[in-house]
Protein backbone atom coordinates (compact mmCIF):
# COMPACT_ATOMS: atom_id res chain seq x y z
CA UNK A 1 0.00 0.00 0.00
CA UNK A 2 1.47 3.33 -1.07
CA UNK A 3 1.06 6.71 0.61
CA UNK A 4 -0.86 7.92 -2.43
CA UNK A 5 -3.38 5.05 -2.33
CA UNK A 6 -3.84 5.44 1.43
CA UNK A 7 -4.61 9.10 0.88
CA UNK A 8 -7.37 8.12 -1.55
CA UNK A 9 -8.82 5.70 1.01
CA UNK A 10 -8.69 8.36 3.72
CA UNK A 11 -10.48 10.89 1.52
CA UNK A 12 -13.09 8.31 0.52
CA UNK A 13 -13.77 7.53 4.18
CA UNK A 14 -12.62 3.92 3.77
CA UNK A 15 -10.05 4.17 6.55
CA UNK A 16 -8.92 6.55 9.27
CA UNK A 17 -5.55 7.83 10.40
CA UNK A 18 -6.01 6.00 13.71
CA UNK A 19 -6.72 2.75 11.86
CA UNK A 20 -3.58 3.18 9.77
CA UNK A 21 -1.54 3.76 12.93
CA UNK A 22 -2.91 0.76 14.77
CA UNK A 23 -2.33 -1.30 11.64
CA UNK A 24 1.30 -0.22 11.60
CA UNK A 25 1.66 -0.97 15.31
CA UNK A 26 0.44 -4.49 14.56
CA UNK A 27 2.93 -4.92 11.70
CA UNK A 28 5.74 -3.63 13.92
CA UNK A 29 4.82 -6.06 16.70
CA UNK A 30 4.66 -8.92 14.19
CA UNK A 31 7.90 -8.33 12.29
CA UNK A 32 10.15 -5.63 13.64
CA UNK A 33 11.56 -7.91 16.33
CA UNK A 34 13.38 -9.58 13.45
CA UNK A 35 14.08 -6.59 11.20
CA UNK A 36 15.07 -4.13 13.93
CA UNK A 37 14.29 -1.00 11.95
CA UNK A 38 12.61 0.87 14.82
CA UNK A 39 14.64 2.17 17.75
CA UNK A 40 11.45 3.41 19.38
CA UNK A 41 7.93 4.55 18.60
CA UNK A 42 5.27 6.40 20.56
CA UNK A 43 1.85 5.16 19.48
CA UNK A 44 -0.03 7.09 22.15
CA UNK A 45 1.13 10.54 21.07
CA UNK A 46 0.71 9.65 17.39
CA UNK A 47 -2.86 8.53 18.09
CA UNK A 48 -3.54 11.84 19.84
CA UNK A 49 -2.29 13.69 16.76
CA UNK A 50 -4.39 11.46 14.50
CA UNK A 51 -7.56 12.54 16.29
CA UNK A 52 -7.13 16.15 15.25
CA UNK A 53 -5.65 15.64 11.80
CA UNK A 54 -6.97 17.61 8.81
CA UNK A 55 -7.46 15.09 5.99
CA UNK A 56 -7.79 17.84 3.39
CA UNK A 57 -4.07 18.66 3.73
CA UNK A 58 -1.61 17.13 1.19
CA UNK A 59 -0.33 14.42 3.57
CA UNK A 60 -3.30 14.52 5.95
CA UNK A 61 -3.45 11.47 8.25
CA UNK A 62 -0.30 9.76 6.98
CA UNK A 63 2.27 8.49 9.53
CA UNK A 64 5.86 9.02 8.41
CA UNK A 65 8.83 7.25 10.02
CA UNK A 66 11.79 9.47 10.92
CA UNK A 67 15.48 8.62 10.86
CA UNK A 68 16.78 9.03 14.38
CA UNK A 69 19.02 12.00 13.53
CA UNK A 70 16.12 14.39 12.80
CA UNK A 71 14.71 16.24 15.81
CA UNK A 72 11.02 15.78 16.67
CA UNK A 73 9.80 17.74 19.68
CA UNK A 74 9.69 15.62 22.84
CA UNK A 75 11.04 12.48 21.17
CA UNK A 76 14.46 10.82 21.46
CA UNK A 77 17.11 11.61 18.85
CA UNK A 78 19.84 9.06 19.50
CA UNK A 79 21.70 9.31 16.17
CA UNK A 80 22.38 5.59 16.78
CA UNK A 81 24.96 6.67 19.35
CA UNK A 82 25.58 5.89 22.99
CA UNK A 83 26.29 9.60 23.34
CA UNK A 84 22.60 10.47 23.00
CA UNK A 85 20.99 7.12 23.83
CA UNK A 86 19.79 8.12 27.30
CA UNK A 87 18.22 11.27 28.66
CA UNK A 88 18.05 13.23 25.40
CA UNK A 89 14.68 14.53 24.23
CA UNK A 90 14.45 16.97 21.31
CA UNK A 91 13.50 20.45 22.53
CA UNK A 92 12.16 21.47 19.10
CA UNK A 93 10.93 20.24 15.70
CA UNK A 94 13.28 20.18 12.71
CA UNK A 95 11.98 22.33 9.84
CA UNK A 96 11.14 19.23 7.77
CA UNK A 97 9.05 17.96 10.70
CA UNK A 98 7.30 21.30 11.08
CA UNK A 99 6.49 21.19 7.35
CA UNK A 100 5.27 17.58 7.52
CA UNK A 101 2.97 18.46 10.41
CA UNK A 102 1.69 21.55 8.56
CA UNK A 103 0.80 19.20 5.67
CA UNK A 104 -1.13 16.90 8.03
CA UNK A 105 1.44 14.11 8.34
CA UNK A 106 2.20 12.44 11.67
CA UNK A 107 5.85 11.73 12.57
CA UNK A 108 5.79 8.16 13.89
CA UNK A 109 8.80 6.07 14.82
CA UNK A 110 12.52 6.66 15.35
CA UNK A 111 14.49 4.68 12.80
CA UNK A 112 17.90 3.04 13.22
CA UNK A 113 20.99 4.35 11.42
CA UNK A 114 24.74 4.11 11.35
CA UNK A 115 26.03 6.21 14.25
CA UNK A 116 25.72 9.89 13.26
CA UNK A 117 24.89 8.63 9.73
CA UNK A 118 28.46 7.42 9.21
CA UNK A 119 28.37 4.13 7.34
CA UNK A 120 26.79 2.12 4.56
CA UNK A 121 25.36 -0.85 6.46
CA UNK A 122 23.64 0.39 9.67
CA UNK A 123 26.09 -1.96 11.44
CA UNK A 124 27.71 1.13 12.95
CA UNK A 125 24.62 1.78 15.07
CA UNK A 126 25.70 1.44 18.70
CA UNK A 127 22.15 0.54 19.68
CA UNK A 128 20.69 -2.18 17.47
CA UNK A 129 21.21 -4.46 14.46
CA UNK A 130 18.89 -3.82 11.51
CA UNK A 131 18.40 -6.68 9.04
CA UNK A 132 17.40 -6.63 5.39
CA UNK A 133 13.75 -7.70 5.10
CA UNK A 134 14.62 -9.62 1.92
CA UNK A 135 17.25 -11.73 3.75
CA UNK A 136 17.77 -11.39 7.51
CA UNK A 137 21.41 -12.47 7.23
CA UNK A 138 22.16 -9.34 5.20
CA UNK A 139 22.61 -5.64 5.80
CA UNK A 140 19.81 -3.22 4.88
CA UNK A 141 22.43 -0.76 3.64
CA UNK A 142 22.99 2.55 5.31
CA UNK A 143 23.15 4.89 6.86
CA UNK A 144 19.33 5.17 6.53
CA UNK A 145 19.00 1.40 7.04
CA UNK A 146 16.13 1.67 9.51
CA UNK A 147 13.96 3.87 7.26
CA UNK A 148 14.64 1.70 4.17
CA UNK A 149 14.07 -1.60 5.96
CA UNK A 150 10.80 -0.43 7.53
CA UNK A 151 9.36 0.82 4.23
CA UNK A 152 10.37 -2.47 2.56
CA UNK A 153 9.01 -4.52 5.49
CA UNK A 154 5.60 -2.74 5.41
CA UNK A 155 6.11 -1.54 8.98
CA UNK A 156 6.21 2.05 7.67
CA UNK A 157 4.40 3.71 4.77
CA UNK A 158 7.14 6.22 4.04
CA UNK A 159 10.13 7.64 5.85
CA UNK A 160 12.50 10.58 6.01
CA UNK A 161 16.23 9.89 5.84
CA UNK A 162 19.39 11.90 5.32
CA UNK A 163 21.95 11.50 2.54
CA UNK A 164 25.54 12.74 2.80
CA UNK A 165 27.18 10.32 0.35
CA UNK A 166 24.43 7.83 -0.53
CA UNK A 167 22.75 7.26 2.83
CA UNK A 168 19.24 7.41 1.35
CA UNK A 169 19.90 5.86 -2.08
CA UNK A 170 22.07 2.87 -1.15
CA UNK A 171 19.75 1.43 1.55
CA UNK A 172 16.78 2.12 -0.75
CA UNK A 173 18.57 0.09 -3.44
CA UNK A 174 19.43 -2.76 -1.05
CA UNK A 175 15.88 -2.92 0.33
CA UNK A 176 13.99 -2.43 -2.95
CA UNK A 177 12.34 0.93 -2.26
CA UNK A 178 12.54 4.43 -3.75
CA UNK A 179 15.05 6.84 -2.18
CA UNK A 180 15.44 10.50 -3.19
CA UNK A 181 18.38 12.80 -2.38
CA UNK A 182 17.28 16.32 -3.25
CA UNK A 183 19.67 18.93 -4.62
CA UNK A 184 21.88 20.76 -2.14
CA UNK A 185 19.84 23.66 -0.78
CA UNK A 186 16.45 22.26 -1.86
CA UNK A 187 15.44 21.07 1.64
CA UNK A 188 16.24 22.71 4.99
CA UNK A 189 18.59 20.83 7.33
CA UNK A 190 17.58 22.83 10.43
CA UNK A 191 17.07 20.17 13.10
CA UNK A 192 18.98 17.46 11.24
CA UNK A 193 21.99 16.56 13.38
CA UNK A 194 24.86 17.78 11.19
CA UNK A 195 27.39 15.30 9.79
CA UNK A 196 29.04 17.03 6.79
CA UNK A 197 27.33 20.34 6.24
CA UNK A 198 28.38 20.92 2.62
CA UNK A 199 26.93 17.52 1.65
CA UNK A 200 23.95 16.69 3.92
CA UNK A 201 20.39 16.66 2.54
CA UNK A 202 17.11 15.32 3.94
CA UNK A 203 14.90 13.27 1.64
CA UNK A 204 12.13 10.64 1.45
CA UNK A 205 12.23 6.83 1.25
CA UNK A 206 8.98 5.50 -0.19
CA UNK A 207 7.27 2.64 -2.04
CA UNK A 208 6.66 4.68 -5.18
CA UNK A 209 8.09 7.60 -7.11
CA UNK A 210 4.77 9.43 -6.74
CA UNK A 211 5.02 9.11 -2.95
CA UNK A 212 8.54 10.58 -3.04
CA UNK A 213 7.24 13.50 -5.14
CA UNK A 214 4.40 14.14 -2.67
CA UNK A 215 6.79 14.30 0.28
CA UNK A 216 9.38 16.43 -1.54
CA UNK A 217 6.59 18.84 -2.48
CA UNK A 218 5.94 19.41 1.22
CA UNK A 219 9.49 19.55 2.63
CA UNK A 220 11.21 21.58 -0.13
CA UNK A 221 11.81 25.31 0.00
CA UNK A 222 13.55 28.23 1.66
CA UNK A 223 14.01 28.19 5.43
CA UNK A 224 15.37 31.28 7.20
CA UNK A 225 16.86 28.91 9.79
CA UNK A 226 19.15 27.20 7.22
CA UNK A 227 21.25 29.72 5.32
CA UNK A 228 22.10 27.10 2.68
CA UNK A 229 18.44 26.56 1.74
CA UNK A 230 17.62 28.21 -1.56
CA UNK A 231 15.06 30.82 -2.52
CA UNK A 232 14.32 29.09 -5.83
CA UNK A 233 10.57 28.51 -6.21
CA UNK A 234 9.33 24.96 -5.59
CA UNK A 235 7.73 23.66 -8.80
CA UNK A 236 4.78 21.27 -8.92
CA UNK A 237 6.49 17.86 -8.77
CA UNK A 238 3.31 15.89 -9.51
CA UNK A 239 1.89 17.55 -12.63
CA UNK A 240 4.58 16.30 -15.04
CA UNK A 241 5.23 12.98 -13.33
CA UNK A 242 3.66 10.88 -16.09
CA UNK A 243 5.00 12.84 -19.05
CA UNK A 244 7.30 9.96 -19.99
CA UNK A 245 10.81 10.00 -21.42
CA UNK A 246 10.12 10.29 -25.16
CA UNK A 247 12.73 12.57 -26.68
CA UNK A 248 14.84 12.87 -23.53
CA UNK A 249 18.58 12.26 -23.72
CA UNK A 250 19.94 9.96 -21.03
CA UNK A 251 23.68 9.51 -20.48
CA UNK A 252 25.54 6.35 -19.50
CA UNK A 253 28.89 7.32 -17.92
CA UNK A 254 31.45 4.72 -18.92
CA UNK A 255 33.19 5.11 -15.54
CA UNK A 256 30.04 3.82 -13.79
CA UNK A 257 29.84 0.64 -15.87
CA UNK A 258 33.43 -0.59 -15.55
CA UNK A 259 34.88 -3.57 -13.73
CA UNK A 260 33.82 -4.58 -10.24
CA UNK A 261 30.07 -4.52 -10.82
CA UNK A 262 28.22 -7.73 -9.89
CA UNK A 263 26.86 -9.38 -13.09
CA UNK A 264 23.28 -9.33 -11.82
CA UNK A 265 23.48 -5.62 -11.05
CA UNK A 266 24.82 -4.88 -14.52
CA UNK A 267 22.10 -7.00 -16.13
CA UNK A 268 19.23 -5.36 -14.22
CA UNK A 269 20.50 -1.82 -14.72
CA UNK A 270 21.06 -2.42 -18.44
CA UNK A 271 17.53 -3.84 -18.71
CA UNK A 272 16.16 -0.71 -17.04
CA UNK A 273 18.13 1.46 -19.48
CA UNK A 274 16.75 -0.52 -22.42
CA UNK A 275 13.22 -0.14 -21.09
CA UNK A 276 13.64 3.65 -20.99
CA UNK A 277 15.01 3.55 -24.53
CA UNK A 278 11.99 1.51 -25.59
CA UNK A 279 9.79 4.29 -24.20
CA UNK A 280 11.46 6.76 -26.53
CA UNK A 281 14.50 8.04 -24.63
CA UNK A 282 17.75 8.49 -26.53
CA UNK A 283 20.59 6.79 -24.67
CA UNK A 284 24.09 8.17 -25.23
CA UNK A 285 27.53 7.29 -23.88
CA UNK A 286 29.18 9.98 -21.78
CA UNK A 287 32.25 10.32 -19.57
CA UNK A 288 32.70 11.70 -16.05
CA UNK A 289 36.49 11.53 -16.09
CA UNK A 290 37.18 12.38 -12.44
CA UNK A 291 34.94 9.62 -11.05
CA UNK A 292 37.92 7.62 -9.77
CA UNK A 293 38.82 10.49 -7.42
CA UNK A 294 35.37 10.78 -5.81
CA UNK A 295 36.03 8.39 -2.91
CA UNK A 296 39.33 10.07 -1.98
CA UNK A 297 37.79 13.54 -2.25
CA UNK A 298 34.77 12.58 -0.18
CA UNK A 299 36.80 10.90 2.55
CA UNK A 300 38.78 14.09 3.07
CA UNK A 301 35.89 16.56 2.96
CA UNK A 302 33.24 14.59 4.87
CA UNK A 303 35.47 13.63 7.85
CA UNK A 304 36.90 17.17 7.98
CA UNK A 305 33.41 18.63 8.30
CA UNK A 306 32.35 15.85 10.68
CA UNK A 307 35.29 16.47 13.02
CA UNK A 308 34.16 20.07 13.30
CA UNK A 309 30.44 19.35 13.61
CA UNK A 310 30.92 16.62 16.22
CA UNK A 311 32.99 18.87 18.47
CA UNK A 312 29.64 19.97 19.91
CA UNK A 313 29.35 16.56 21.55
CA UNK A 314 31.56 17.41 24.50
CA UNK A 315 29.47 16.26 27.45
CA UNK A 316 28.55 19.76 28.57
CA UNK A 317 25.09 20.70 27.31
CA UNK A 318 23.51 17.35 26.42
CA UNK A 319 24.22 13.68 26.13
CA UNK A 320 26.82 11.51 27.77
CA UNK A 321 29.09 12.99 30.46
CA UNK A 322 31.94 10.99 32.00
CA UNK A 323 31.78 10.57 35.77
CA UNK A 324 34.22 12.32 38.14
CA UNK A 325 36.25 14.30 35.61
CA UNK A 326 39.59 15.66 36.86
CA UNK A 327 39.17 18.85 34.85
CA UNK A 328 37.47 20.17 31.70
CA UNK A 329 39.78 18.52 29.10
CA UNK A 330 39.39 15.22 30.96
CA UNK A 331 35.60 15.64 30.87
CA UNK A 332 35.67 16.24 27.09
CA UNK A 333 38.03 13.40 26.29
CA UNK A 334 36.44 10.72 28.41
CA UNK A 335 32.86 11.70 27.55
CA UNK A 336 33.76 11.34 23.87
CA UNK A 337 35.69 8.12 24.50
CA UNK A 338 32.66 6.38 26.02
CA UNK A 339 30.08 8.12 23.84
CA UNK A 340 31.40 7.47 20.32
CA UNK A 341 31.80 4.17 18.47
CA UNK A 342 34.80 3.15 16.33
CA UNK A 343 33.67 4.52 12.93
CA UNK A 344 32.88 7.93 14.40
CA UNK A 345 36.26 8.01 16.16
CA UNK A 346 38.06 7.03 12.94
CA UNK A 347 36.41 9.82 11.02
CA UNK A 348 37.02 12.43 13.72
CA UNK A 349 40.72 11.52 13.75
CA UNK A 350 40.93 11.51 9.96
CA UNK A 351 39.10 14.83 9.74
CA UNK A 352 41.20 16.46 12.44
CA UNK A 353 44.35 15.25 10.69
CA UNK A 354 43.48 16.62 7.24
CA UNK A 355 42.61 19.99 8.77
CA UNK A 356 45.71 20.20 10.95
CA UNK A 357 48.56 22.62 10.39
CA UNK A 358 50.98 21.37 7.75
CA UNK A 359 48.49 18.97 6.14
CA UNK A 360 45.61 21.32 5.31
CA UNK A 361 46.89 22.25 1.84
CA UNK A 362 47.94 18.74 0.88
CA UNK A 363 44.60 17.20 1.81
CA UNK A 364 41.67 19.51 2.50
CA UNK A 365 42.51 22.33 0.11
CA UNK A 366 43.42 19.87 -2.65
CA UNK A 367 40.22 17.87 -2.12
CA UNK A 368 38.14 21.03 -2.48
CA UNK A 369 39.81 21.70 -5.82
CA UNK A 370 39.21 18.15 -7.04
CA UNK A 371 35.62 18.65 -5.93
CA UNK A 372 35.43 21.50 -8.46
CA UNK A 373 36.68 19.13 -11.17
CA UNK A 374 34.03 16.55 -10.23
CA UNK A 375 31.34 19.23 -10.33
CA UNK A 376 32.56 20.41 -13.74
CA UNK A 377 32.32 16.83 -15.06
CA UNK A 378 28.59 16.87 -14.30
CA UNK A 379 28.11 20.40 -15.66
CA UNK A 380 29.70 19.35 -18.94
CA UNK A 381 27.65 16.14 -19.09
CA UNK A 382 24.38 18.00 -18.51
CA UNK A 383 25.01 20.18 -21.55
CA UNK A 384 24.62 16.98 -23.58
CA UNK A 385 22.03 14.97 -21.64
CA UNK A 386 18.92 15.58 -19.53
CA UNK A 387 19.87 12.99 -16.92
CA UNK A 388 22.43 10.29 -16.15
CA UNK A 389 21.79 6.60 -15.40
CA UNK A 390 23.97 4.24 -13.35
CA UNK A 391 23.89 1.49 -10.73
CA UNK A 392 23.42 2.68 -7.13
CA UNK A 393 25.89 0.18 -5.68
CA UNK A 394 28.36 -2.25 -7.29
CA UNK A 395 26.59 -5.24 -5.72
CA UNK A 396 23.39 -6.14 -3.86
CA UNK A 397 23.31 -6.26 -0.04
CA UNK A 398 26.25 -8.11 1.51
CA UNK A 399 26.00 -10.34 4.55
CA UNK A 400 26.19 -8.83 8.02
CA UNK A 401 29.90 -8.69 8.80
CA UNK A 402 30.39 -6.56 11.87
CA UNK A 403 33.93 -5.65 12.80
CA UNK A 404 35.47 -7.90 10.13
CA UNK A 405 34.64 -5.35 7.44
CA UNK A 406 37.64 -3.27 6.36
CA UNK A 407 36.76 0.47 6.45
CA UNK A 408 38.51 1.32 3.18
CA UNK A 409 36.77 -1.55 1.33
CA UNK A 410 33.46 -0.26 2.66
CA UNK A 411 34.26 3.31 1.54
CA UNK A 412 35.16 2.11 -1.97
CA UNK A 413 31.72 0.49 -2.34
CA UNK A 414 30.19 4.00 -2.12
CA UNK A 415 31.81 4.96 -5.45
CA UNK A 416 28.57 5.59 -7.40
CA UNK A 417 26.71 7.62 -4.76
CA UNK A 418 29.36 10.04 -3.44
CA UNK A 419 29.94 12.25 -6.48
CA UNK A 420 26.33 13.59 -6.67
CA UNK A 421 26.68 14.93 -3.11
CA UNK A 422 30.05 16.51 -3.94
CA UNK A 423 28.45 18.16 -7.00
CA UNK A 424 25.22 19.13 -5.19
CA UNK A 425 22.97 17.64 -7.88
CA UNK A 426 19.79 15.63 -7.21
CA UNK A 427 19.72 11.85 -7.35
CA UNK A 428 17.26 9.00 -6.87
CA UNK A 429 17.36 5.24 -6.45
CA UNK A 430 14.52 3.31 -8.10
CA UNK A 431 14.07 -0.47 -7.79
CA UNK A 432 14.97 -2.27 -11.05
CA UNK A 433 14.37 -5.91 -10.27
CA UNK A 434 16.23 -8.56 -8.33
CA UNK A 435 19.39 -10.54 -8.80
CA UNK A 436 20.97 -13.69 -7.40
CA UNK A 437 24.09 -12.80 -5.41
CA UNK A 438 26.52 -14.51 -3.05
CA UNK A 439 24.24 -17.46 -2.29
CA UNK A 440 20.98 -15.47 -2.19
CA UNK A 441 18.35 -16.16 -4.84
CA UNK A 442 16.80 -12.73 -5.27
CA UNK A 443 18.11 -9.47 -3.82
CA UNK A 444 16.87 -6.01 -4.88
CA UNK A 445 18.90 -3.93 -7.32
CA UNK A 446 18.55 -0.16 -7.71
CA UNK A 447 18.86 2.12 -10.74
CA UNK A 448 20.41 5.50 -9.92
CA UNK A 449 19.20 8.52 -11.88
CA UNK A 450 21.07 11.84 -11.63
CA UNK A 451 19.71 15.20 -12.79
CA UNK A 452 21.08 18.76 -12.66
CA UNK A 453 20.91 20.95 -9.58
CA UNK A 454 17.23 21.72 -8.82
CA UNK A 455 16.21 19.31 -11.59
CA UNK A 456 13.95 17.23 -9.33
CA UNK A 457 10.91 17.48 -11.64
CA UNK A 458 12.91 15.93 -14.49
CA UNK A 459 14.46 13.38 -12.12
CA UNK A 460 11.09 12.23 -10.79
CA UNK A 461 9.57 12.07 -14.28
CA UNK A 462 12.33 9.71 -15.48
CA UNK A 463 12.14 7.71 -12.25
CA UNK A 464 8.39 7.28 -12.76
CA UNK A 465 9.00 5.94 -16.27
CA UNK A 466 11.65 3.53 -14.97
CA UNK A 467 9.33 2.39 -12.20
CA UNK A 468 6.42 1.73 -14.56
CA UNK A 469 8.64 -0.74 -16.39
CA UNK A 470 9.73 -2.46 -13.21
Amino acid at each position, binding site marked *: MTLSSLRQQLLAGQTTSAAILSGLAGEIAARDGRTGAYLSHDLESAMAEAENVDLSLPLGGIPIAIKDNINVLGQPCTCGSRFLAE*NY*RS*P*YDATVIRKLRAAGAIPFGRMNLDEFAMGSSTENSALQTTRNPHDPERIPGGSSGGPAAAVADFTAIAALGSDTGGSIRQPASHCGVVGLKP*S*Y*GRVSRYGLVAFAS*SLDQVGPLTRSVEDAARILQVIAGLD*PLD*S*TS*LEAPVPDYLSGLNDGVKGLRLGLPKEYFGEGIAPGVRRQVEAAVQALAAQGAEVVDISLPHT*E*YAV*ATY*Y*VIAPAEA*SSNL*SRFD*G*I*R*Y*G*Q*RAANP*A*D*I*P*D*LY*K*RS*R*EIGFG*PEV*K*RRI*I*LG*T*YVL*SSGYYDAYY*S*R*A*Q*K*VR*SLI*RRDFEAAFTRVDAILSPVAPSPARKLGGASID*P*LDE*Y*LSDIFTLAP*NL*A*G*ICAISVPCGVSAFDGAAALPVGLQILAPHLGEAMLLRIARAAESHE
Partner: protein
Amino acid sequence: MSQPHIDVRYVANLARLELSDEEIATFQPQLDAILGHVETLSQLDVDGIEASAHAVPVFGRMRADEPHTSLPLSAVLQNAPDQSQGQIRVPKVVADA
Protein backbone atom coordinates in the same frame (compact mmCIF):
# COMPACT_ATOMS: atom_id res chain seq x y z
CA MET B 1 54.66 11.98 -1.23
CA SER B 2 55.94 9.14 0.91
CA GLN B 3 53.56 6.64 2.49
CA PRO B 4 51.41 8.77 4.83
CA HIS B 5 51.29 8.06 8.52
CA ILE B 6 49.05 9.54 11.20
CA ASP B 7 50.28 9.94 14.76
CA VAL B 8 46.93 8.69 16.05
CA ARG B 9 47.48 9.47 19.73
CA TYR B 10 48.62 13.04 18.98
CA VAL B 11 45.71 13.75 16.60
CA ALA B 12 43.18 12.17 18.97
CA ASN B 13 44.37 14.57 21.65
CA LEU B 14 43.82 17.50 19.28
CA ALA B 15 40.26 16.21 18.78
CA ARG B 16 39.79 15.86 22.58
CA LEU B 17 39.31 12.12 22.22
CA GLU B 18 40.69 9.60 24.70
CA LEU B 19 41.65 6.31 23.03
CA SER B 20 42.71 2.97 24.48
CA ASP B 21 45.92 1.26 23.32
CA GLU B 22 43.74 -1.35 21.59
CA GLU B 23 41.85 1.33 19.67
CA ILE B 24 45.08 2.95 18.54
CA ALA B 25 46.43 -0.41 17.39
CA THR B 26 43.22 -1.01 15.41
CA PHE B 27 42.91 2.47 13.92
CA GLN B 28 46.57 2.95 12.94
CA PRO B 29 46.71 0.60 9.91
CA GLN B 30 43.12 1.46 8.91
CA LEU B 31 43.77 5.20 8.87
CA ASP B 32 47.11 4.78 7.09
CA ALA B 33 45.36 2.69 4.40
CA ILE B 34 42.64 5.32 3.96
CA LEU B 35 45.24 8.09 3.67
CA GLY B 36 47.13 5.94 1.19
CA HIS B 37 44.03 5.93 -1.00
CA VAL B 38 43.59 9.69 -0.52
CA GLU B 39 47.11 10.09 -1.95
CA THR B 40 45.62 9.38 -5.40
CA LEU B 41 44.51 13.03 -5.34
CA SER B 42 48.16 14.08 -5.64
CA GLN B 43 48.20 12.63 -9.19
CA LEU B 44 46.00 15.48 -10.38
CA ASP B 45 47.22 18.89 -11.46
CA VAL B 46 44.97 21.33 -9.61
CA ASP B 47 46.91 24.52 -10.32
CA GLY B 48 44.49 27.33 -11.07
CA ILE B 49 41.43 25.29 -10.06
CA GLU B 50 39.11 27.09 -7.63
CA ALA B 51 38.29 25.36 -4.33
CA SER B 52 34.65 24.37 -3.81
CA ALA B 53 33.71 24.67 -0.15
CA HIS B 54 30.10 24.17 -1.16
CA ALA B 55 28.46 22.62 -4.19
CA VAL B 56 26.34 25.70 -4.73
CA PRO B 57 27.78 29.23 -4.56
CA VAL B 58 25.50 30.68 -1.89
CA PHE B 59 27.48 32.36 0.86
CA GLY B 60 26.71 34.19 4.05
CA ARG B 61 23.13 34.98 3.25
CA MET B 62 21.53 36.75 6.21
CA ARG B 63 17.96 36.29 7.32
CA ALA B 64 15.80 39.29 8.13
CA ASP B 65 16.97 41.03 11.31
CA GLU B 66 13.76 40.46 13.21
CA PRO B 67 13.39 39.32 16.81
CA HIS B 68 11.80 35.92 17.30
CA THR B 69 11.11 33.68 20.23
CA SER B 70 13.95 31.52 21.48
CA LEU B 71 13.60 28.19 23.24
CA PRO B 72 12.56 28.60 26.88
CA LEU B 73 15.31 28.08 29.44
CA SER B 74 13.66 24.90 30.71
CA ALA B 75 13.79 23.37 27.20
CA VAL B 76 17.46 24.26 26.81
CA LEU B 77 18.37 22.86 30.22
CA GLN B 78 16.27 19.70 30.04
CA ASN B 79 19.10 17.71 28.42
CA ALA B 80 22.00 19.12 30.46
CA PRO B 81 23.83 16.32 32.33
CA ASP B 82 24.42 18.53 35.38
CA GLN B 83 22.75 21.80 36.29
CA SER B 84 22.28 24.18 39.15
CA GLN B 85 20.33 27.45 39.61
CA GLY B 86 19.18 27.58 35.98
CA GLN B 87 22.68 27.05 34.61
CA ILE B 88 24.77 24.16 33.30
CA ARG B 89 27.32 23.05 35.88
CA VAL B 90 30.84 22.04 34.77
CA PRO B 91 34.10 21.25 36.60
CA LYS B 92 36.07 24.24 37.82
CA VAL B 93 37.77 25.99 34.90
CA VAL B 94 39.74 28.74 36.66
CA ALA B 95 42.53 27.69 39.02
CA ASP B 96 42.68 28.96 42.61
CA ALA B 97 44.71 32.16 43.02
